């Protein structure tokens, strides 16, 4: 039924407008009662390099999560003998692959379906009892260049609506994983079941394959998933996947970052929390001083080689370096403590000025402050005891 509605051209436009109305009415509140949609074109803000950098940093690159065990047709194992340099190269390649996997699906505006008539021949009316859909199957064309036209029974020749165009493209040039008909799981009742079982990654991954980013379904489904996550507070499921960036962007755009911020503070991702607030300020042109703090973070953060860091982590089991032992015991370095000092005032400033869930957030910041102070004391004590500067 859901599909039929979408297929219908007139209905499509009507529902589109209804959704837009819904979005504009509830756009500024943090409630998730209606489906939140982008009321302006989000693409320029999303593709902005600074935003991208913030989103990537918040996504985090956890190799264990990115390369977690999955079901594959061929689960064979390969062994290789390597020197240290070869191993380093291999790690570099692996990091590149991981970054590739984290590439975010774009956030763009919904495309409107317009009727574009090519010609009108009334002498042809009644030439057939059905319409004809004609597809150009010339080799080597891009999907966007490929024309699909419809000859209506009244003799009108027009460009096919989006739904038919997509169906014809999939029919003559199928994409792997995408099916001609929308899978049943995207129907309302099944989607709700998936959401209740918290299969967010499954839904989002399948959605990215099945729909193009400019399709209305892409927007409604992703919005539903993000809002559900915001309710259940299971942000960690999406962390270190390609969907974390768009989700964060969505929350920042619709000014409902408080739950995510609380989660970040609680997990001691203070830098990410600061970045999230900066993103909010940036999207809504609120406080221009956020640029300073981003700059300071950049300065403090050492330009370390990610591959080498991961390699060291992997090799650490056998290593007997005292300094690393301290780090692994506490989980923090000197730089991390400095970053915390930088970020905490910024976060507290946001909480006092703009936050909706003030009490909760203040409590969380207070707790993390105390924990970090203890950790710092421990860190310094151990460092002194070992005679490490």
């Amino acid at each position, binding site marked *: 039924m859901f599909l039929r509605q979408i297929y219908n051209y007139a209905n499509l436009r009507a529902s589109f407008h209804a959704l837009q109305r819904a979005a504009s009415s509830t756009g500024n509140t943090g409630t998730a009662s209606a489906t939140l949609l982008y009321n302006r074109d989000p693409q320029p803000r999303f593709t902005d390099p600074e935003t991208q950098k913030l989103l990537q940093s918040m996504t985090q690159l956890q*190799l264990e999560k*990115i*390369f*977690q*065990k*999955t*079901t*594959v047709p*061929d*689960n*064979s*194992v*390969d*062994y*290789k*003998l*390597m*020197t*240290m*340099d*070869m*191993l380093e190269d*291999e*790690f570099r390649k*692996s990091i590149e*692959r*991981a970054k590739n*996997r984290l590439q975010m699906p774009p956030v763009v505006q919904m495309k409107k379906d317009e009727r574009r008539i090519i010609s009108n021949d009334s002498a042809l009316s009644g030439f057939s009892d059905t319409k004809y859909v004609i597809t150009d199957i010339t080799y080597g064309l891009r999907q966007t260049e490929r024309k699909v036209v419809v000859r209506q029974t009244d003799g009108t020749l027009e460009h096919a609506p989006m739904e038919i165009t997509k*169906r014809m493209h999939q*029919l003559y040039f199928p994409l792997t994983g995408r099916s*001609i*008909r929308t899978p049943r799981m995207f129907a309302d009742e099944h989607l709700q079941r998936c959401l209740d079982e918290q299969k967010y990654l499954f839904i989002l991954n399948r959605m990215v394959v099945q729909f193009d980013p400019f399709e209305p379904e892409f927007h409604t489904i992703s919005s539903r998933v993000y809002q559900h996550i915001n309710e259940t507070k299971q942000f960690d499921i999406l962390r270190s996947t390609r969907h974390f960036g768009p989700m964060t962007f969505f929350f920042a755009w619709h000014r409902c970052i408080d739950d995510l911020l609380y989660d970040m503070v609680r997990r001691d991702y203070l830098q990410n929390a600061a970045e999230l607030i900066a993103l909010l300020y940036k999207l809504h042109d609120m406080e221009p001083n956020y640029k300073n703090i981003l700059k300071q973070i950049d300065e403090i953060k050492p330009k370390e080689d990610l591959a080498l860091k991961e390699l060291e982590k*992997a*090799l650490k089991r*056998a290593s007997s370096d005292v300094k690393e032992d301290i780090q692994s015991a506490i989980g923090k370095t000197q730089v991390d403590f400095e970053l915390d000092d930088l970020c905490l005032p910024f976060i507290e400033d946001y909480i006092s000025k703009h936050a909706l869930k003030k009490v909760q957030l203040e409590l969380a910041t207070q707790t993390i402050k105390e924990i970090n102070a203890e950790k710092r004391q421990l860190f310094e004590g151990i460092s002194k005891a070992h005679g490490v500067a």
Partner: protein
Amino acid sequence: MVGVFGKSVTIMYNHVLRNILAPSKEVATNTFRYTSFYNKLSAEDIWRGVTSVSNAGKKRGRGKGSGKRVAKDLNRGQTIGVGSRNFVWPGLNAPIVRGKTLIQQERLSEVNNMDRNINKIRDLMGTYRIAKVNSIDRGWSGAKMPGRSIGPPDAINEEMFENFDTRVLENKIVFIMKGNMGRKRRYSVLSITGNKKGLAGFAVAKAPEVRTALRKSKNRAAQKVIKIELCDNHTVFHDFSCAFGKTRIFVQRKPEGYGLICHRAIETICKVIGIRNLHAKIEGSTNLQHIVKALFLGLLQQKTHEEISRKTNLHVIEFRNETGLHPHIISKPESCKASKDPLSKEVSDYTQYVLDDQISLKKRKFAPFYIDSKGYNLFLKRKEQVRNQQKVRVNMNAFDNDLQSV
């Protein structure tokens, strides 16, 4: 002229034909033989001749199958004078005179259980059955011992063999010549015992009784348990080939879920040891004792990852498809070469290194003989037209219970 000649030939032909069809009476002699084994032999002898094998035949190995099926004696339960019709025959199944009355031939009531009773007796006969083994406990073949489990070994000095299981690999009769007894028969049993976690041992034992031999071999195997390293708790460390005598086994390491694709003896051994995935091919003799010995040699001579990295001074890195080919460090050496140069030839390839520079022969696969035949081409042509039918049907039915194009 022609007419005359034709006439004489016809006459001659008719004459011959008459002679053939109705030969003169003097030529025909009928011989009759009045004796046959039916009237020469007793019923018992004839019956035995049908249902059993002669001594001479037995020696030649005849009638091995028929011995198990006991022939039915159709005479049992039958008495003269009693049949399916309930009749009184004076002098046969009744006295002729009872008291003073002369008994007449008489038909009694129609109801008679004679047929049913006889069939019941016959059904009871010849119900010889082989003792049934539960399908779970069954070995490689039927009720034979090889492949069957005979439980954990007996405890030694209160040392229990917990989680151990013993499987019979070979159970055969062997003879030796004795000075006073001649050919002396004994049973030889080869069995393997293990705990499915890398501990296993095998032994051969002989005894005059099967049961004793099984017990002896099981307990002897328990005393020879050795530790075999398992890779990831499910397979071998690497491909290897091993040999004993004329038996050579080529073993391949396989990923989880592959199963044991090998000789049934190797499969049983692997199960007992705890190996769940492996491919093995035996070349040469398939003597069971040799297979066991060769496989144990091969398993013991495996190079573990730690050994390899210690010997080569290189890291052993694992790449799994299921984790996106992310390098996983399995073992690292004490000190590692830090060169970017290509490695020396002997360690450049892991497989080549673990196989000690041997290369396994990959035999070429030949196309089946019918590939160019007319019939096969026709078959392909017909198949091609319906190549997607099933998939489309399923898809259509799944979406709208209807067969129509999208």
